[in-house]
């Protein structure tokens, strides 16, 4: 299963962190720091896989891809196909691209709620649920629409639009 999905910028700041096994917040931060310290030392033109071992515990590995200023990282165990995980990063980023058109780090920081929405449509409980970007996009759009227009207290819908708009 997939154990965690992380987005870390090249300064080491976490931009998205989702753990599929319960991990206390201190440990999450420590993991992010240690993963970043490994990633930023990776030379160019090397494979995108890192054996977890000491870093992440037994039977774990990590695949990463650097897009502009952001590292997209999946941590997973031996039941997942490394190359497929590498493609999954691609799928996720393609969906972000469709959502934000020319996505940049600022989009991701300000819309981290939407990042989670997309991720939740793709991965549930550490398992891939959907890889078709059209289906994911459709669900994400529906959810955004619901968040702004659902019947409820007007104040709430107003604040919601302030929240995600």
């Amino acid at each position, binding site marked *: 299963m997939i154990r965690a999905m992380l987005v870390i910028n090249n300064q080491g700041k976490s931009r998205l962190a989702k753990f599929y096994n319960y991990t206390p917040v201190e440990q999450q931060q420590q993991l992010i720091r240690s993963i970043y310290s490994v990633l930023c030392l990776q030379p160019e033109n090397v494979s995108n896989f890192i054996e977890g071992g000491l870093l992440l515990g037994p039977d774990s590995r990590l695949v990463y891809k650097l897009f502009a200023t952001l590292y997209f990282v999946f941590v997973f165990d031996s*039941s997942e196909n*490394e190359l497929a995980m590498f493609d999954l990063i691609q799928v996720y980023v393609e969906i972000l691209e469709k959502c934000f058109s020319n996505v940049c780090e600022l989009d991701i*920081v300000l819309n981290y*709620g939407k990042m989670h929405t997309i991720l939740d449509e793709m991965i549930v409980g550490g398992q891939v*649920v959907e890889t078709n970007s059209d289906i994911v996009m459709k669900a994400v759009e529906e959810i955004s629409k619901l968040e702004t227009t*659902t019947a409820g207290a007007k104040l*709430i819908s107003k*604040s919601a639009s302030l929240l995600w708009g």
Partner: protein
Amino acid sequence: MNPFSSGTRLRDMIRAIRACKTAAEERAVVRKECASIRAAVSDNDNDYRHRNLAKLMFIHMLGYPTHFGQMECLKLIAAPGFPEKRIGYLGLMLLLDERQEVLMLVTNSLKQDLNHTNQYIVGLALCALGNICSAEMARDLAPEVERLLQFRDPNVRKKAALCSIRIVKKVPDLVENFVNPVASLLKEKHHGVLLTAMQLCADLCILSEEALEYFKKRCTEGLVKVLKDAVNSPYAPEYDISGIADPFLQIRLLRLLRILGHGDADASDCMNDVLAQVATKTESNKNAGNAILYECVETILSIEDSGGLRVLAINILGRFLSNRDNNIRYVALNMLMKAISVDGQAVQRHRATILECVKDSDASIRKRALELVYLLVNESNVKPLTKELIDYLEVSDQDFKGDLTARICSIVEKLSPDKLWYIDQMLKVLCEAGNYVKDEVWHALIVVITNASNLHGYTVRSLYRAIQTSVDQEAVVRVAVWCIGEYGDLLMNNTGMLDLEEPITVTESDAVDVIELAIKRHTSDLTTRAMCLIALLKLSSRFPSSSQRIKDIVTQSKGSLLLELQQRSIEFDSIIEKHQNLRAALVERMPVLDEATYSGRRSGSVPAAVSTSQGNALHLPNGVAKMADAPLLDLLDLSVDEPAAPNSSGGNFLQDLLGADISSSSSQSGKIQAQKSGTDVLLDLLSTGSAPAQNGSSTPDIFSISQDNKTSISALDSLSSPMVPPVQASPITGGSPMDLLDGFGPNPPVPKDNGPAHPPIVAFESSSLKIIFNFSKEPESPQTTLIEANFTNKSSEVYTDFIFQAAVPKFLQLHLEPASGNTLPSSSSGSITQKLRVTNNQHGKKSIMMRIRISYKLNGKDMLEEGQISNIPRDL
């Protein structure tokens, strides 16, 4: 309403945090926000609750504590509106820890939302449940999830399927409820549903044998057909990833087939065709295509044998190795490591390509390829492979040299066909990367050199050449210095020339030059310099004409700040100057070092006998040399004037004890020398424990008897006769003879006729566990030892599922009988016994040793202990 909570919007907060220049500023902003959110929480502010929670999630991501927001999540989930629920569930997944009581509160809300009319709300609830479900929640909500597996909307069905995975993992009893729904989901056309259904199916199969059997029979054919369609399907753009139709689905299918086909010939047979199709038809120029091929290879290797298919699979991996993409090479090497155990021959065929990967620019690929090469080396290919690796050593990266040399040395040590080759290869390695080899490696080399008596001349000459070119490699210098010291004379006259060797002319002063150079190099460390001094001492005797020069060099270290060097220098100087007559005998060639002892010491944990203040660095060659110079010290201190006088304390003791006039005979060395150890035996016996009184009284008796027979027995003989009686007497004393006689050295007078008795040993002891070995032997086969292992539990808890495993080196064969039980009562109140039968092919040369592994369950938790047993006596 609290004035603070109206504060900032989420975006403003994010901007404020991003604008912070320092970590302290950031903390201040976060603290302020947290304070206002806490205030809003305590005011029970409804209007901004979900905005506050959204902020909290961002703060959580930055690593600050947010536990005070947990109850807010529950309130939001219970709210009717979608935006609140959305934030509430997101918070639930991110912020909540596994404290059951809080999660219990949410179960009811989840139940309602799972039955909600809005499918997106159902989706939210399913997603949250799939991520955080606990065992209690799983029991309570399983019926809802099961029902949702048949929901009209496929988006809900697929999430329900993944939710079910979490549920059955938490509560495996529920597996059977899901078997039938999954079987029908597997017939669906919707890719997302099919993908998730296959994951659920795979997990059910792993959890339950029955489910596995069921799916094997009912679903294998259907799945094979789905895969066949996927492979042959026309282009399906919506699931396409860089031109490959739905790779994720194909990968899941292949993984499920792997589980179904493992260990089942019929199921494997059924999928052979389609696997061959996937392996041949999938395009391999894209990552997605390679991902499918990779999965396909793994499936082929795990299902039941079909020879041709395996070769096809391993050839795909071979092709991967020459792919330009690092990732592909990386996974291929990983998979080849697994494939070696399945079909080593097929992997061997790709040896050349794998060897190329050792030279890859990517360090992680190099490392894996090297491991793989290490696994591939055998007697038949060791020579060419070692040559390749050593050639590469010249040009490899500095950081890689350590790993590479370690592997090469290990290969050479393990598989060298003859000593000449071994020495040649090791010299090459040392010349290239002498600074990277571990001490054990060059220690072992010296041991091998001393044992190869016909190669001494060749070795020392090769080393002489090597040190000229590789003077900066510490290990070469050490080995060369040692060998020149020992075999310096062979350097001069080309003794023992091999056919392949070119003659060289070396003068005495050339040889001394080399050592002088080594001792004076500023990079040489203490060990090297100390070795140089010993070599010089030895050469001073071998090269009499250079003696004065050597003395000058030795004298230069007299003022060394390093105590060890200073001491050696002064001692050696005095030997060279004052003790010409004694020197030649002192610096004779070292006796041949015992390979078996050394390798035993290396692999076992027996501590080195001599440990000097320098610790490990000085172990073998120096340590041995030290033993030589320790008595030297005594000689110099005690009896400078009559160095050859035998140390006769044993005799004196005997004299005192017996009051007899035998001191004159004890000074006639000769035969006495041989019996010396016997005298010491007596001495030890008499001075140990309760025995002396009895022994002391018996010895004079014996002696007096022999005195009575004086007419026929000479004085010397009578002296020797008391040596035997104490040995026979010792069992009579009732003490433990083994203890008394222990550590006698050369010829311990164990009473052989009684048959060897083997005391039990404590083979392994940890804080929780103790293992005692009882030995017995079958008289007709000395090589076989029966060991009865006795396990006791030192802790206060009962161990269940107790399993003892052992592994032995190649020269041993081990047969484990079943244990007497698998439950070990607490506090040493009972034990398990297990019989081991060990056959030692090198009986008498090597002692029995083994690695052990003990696993057991302590309060349901798996525990594992490992260790090594190397204290089994040699005579077993």
